[in-house]
């Protein structure tokens, strides 16, 4: 299977703002050149203050998300407390490496707020964690989104500004990628609330 990461297509992006974080993803679920559905969920709320975005093979997106849900639920019950975003970020890395020789074909992005401080981490498919940047991308349209991010991004944006910037970056990037698009969803998380906005894009 040439390009198992390209089989289903899809793009994700995460950004840090001032005491807030944002995640965005496209909505396409395809099988190579065929588009199957235009409402596939790729960003998941793991906890009130943690978002997990996944790009790659859709089957693994779903399975890996289910695995992380199970882990955090068991953790909440066993430890009798919520999981910190940095802890979850490390858990994702461990979980991916556990499958080092039969990996999940996903490239996750974790975003969260820990005591008001934005947390953003990205990984390759076998768990190499990188948490040094203020924005990260994943998926087939990733590189195109990078370009838009570099142009639009500024540090310490407010939630409203961040929503605008991440939305524009996603849409511009996905426009160039045939395997991503068919709408976008933007999630902005602050201490008080999580807002979800559905974006219209070029319907191709």
């Amino acid at each position, binding site marked *: 299977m040439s390009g198992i990461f390209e089989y289903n297509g899809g793009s994700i992006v995460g950004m840090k703002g001032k005491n807030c974080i944002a995640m965005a993803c496209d909505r396409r679920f395809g099988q190579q050149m065929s588009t199957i559905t235009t409402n596939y969920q790729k960003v998941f709320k793991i906890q009130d203050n943690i978002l997990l975005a996944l790009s790659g093979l859709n089957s693994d997106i779903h399975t890996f998300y289910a695995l992380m849900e199970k882990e955090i639920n068991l953790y909440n019950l066993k*430890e009798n407390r919520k999981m910190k975003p940095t802890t979850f970020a490390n858990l994702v890395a461990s979980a991916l490496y556990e499958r080092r020789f039969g990996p999940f074909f996903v490239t996750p992005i974790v975003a969260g707020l820990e005591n008001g401080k934005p947390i953003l981490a990205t990984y390759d498919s076998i768990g190499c964690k990188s948490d040094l940047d203020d924005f990260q991308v994943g998926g087939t349209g990733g590189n195109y989104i990078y370009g838009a991010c570099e142009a639009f991004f500024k540090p310490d944006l407010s939630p409203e500004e961040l929503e605008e910037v991440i939305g524009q970056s996603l849409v511009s990037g996905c426009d160039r990628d045939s395997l991503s698009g068919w709408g976008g969803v933007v999630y902005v998380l602050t201490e008080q609330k999580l807002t979800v906005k559905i974006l219209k894009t070029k319907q191709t």
Partner: protein
Amino acid sequence: MTDFALTTFSSKGKLLQIEYALNAVAKGDTAIGIKAKNGVVLVVEKKQSSILIEESSVQKIALLTDNVAATYAGLGPDFRVLSQQARKLVKKYDLKYQEEIFVQTLSRELAEDVQIATQRGGIRPFGVSILIAGYDEEGPHLVQLDPSGAYYSWKATAIGKQAKNAKAFLEKRYNADMEIEDAINTALLTLKEGFEGQITPTNIEVGVIRDDHVFRILPASQVKDYLEELE
């Protein structure tokens, strides 16, 4: 490994093997733990059976990780095995979450290993009660882990030979506003109360953790200073 359990119920509903294990604990050298507002102290008797024993080779307080340590009353070798298992549990947690383990989590997971020894074929229960002292995000903790696998969080407690008298002494002396320095003095006073013979810096072991989350076993020179302060 045999297939049948060695620890089985008596007609009165007791697990005699666990009772007997607790008897072994009650014969062991006294260990005392006190939790203060800003730290925890562990103090344990280290009576040597002969003057020929190399004192420095005996360590009764075992560091489980930077911010958690444990001591015991009962069978030394059993404690050695359990503290090694505890260290592995800490590292397993660390590998998965890359974070400092919570004392309650460690206690619970270690307690599982202790309980298994009361319900598995061919093995006997552990002959130690363990006092776990640590400082994590939630604050200072002092936990006692018994041969049955039951664990209890304490403000102050004692295990071993002088447990009963020491706890009675502690009940009078303990107050919730204690700072760690007061706790250290109180722990030493409590141990001194029931001590057979003269208490010296080399026949006891003292370990302290403060709000810097670092557990330290005090060198004999520091213990000497604290003991002199008691006079």
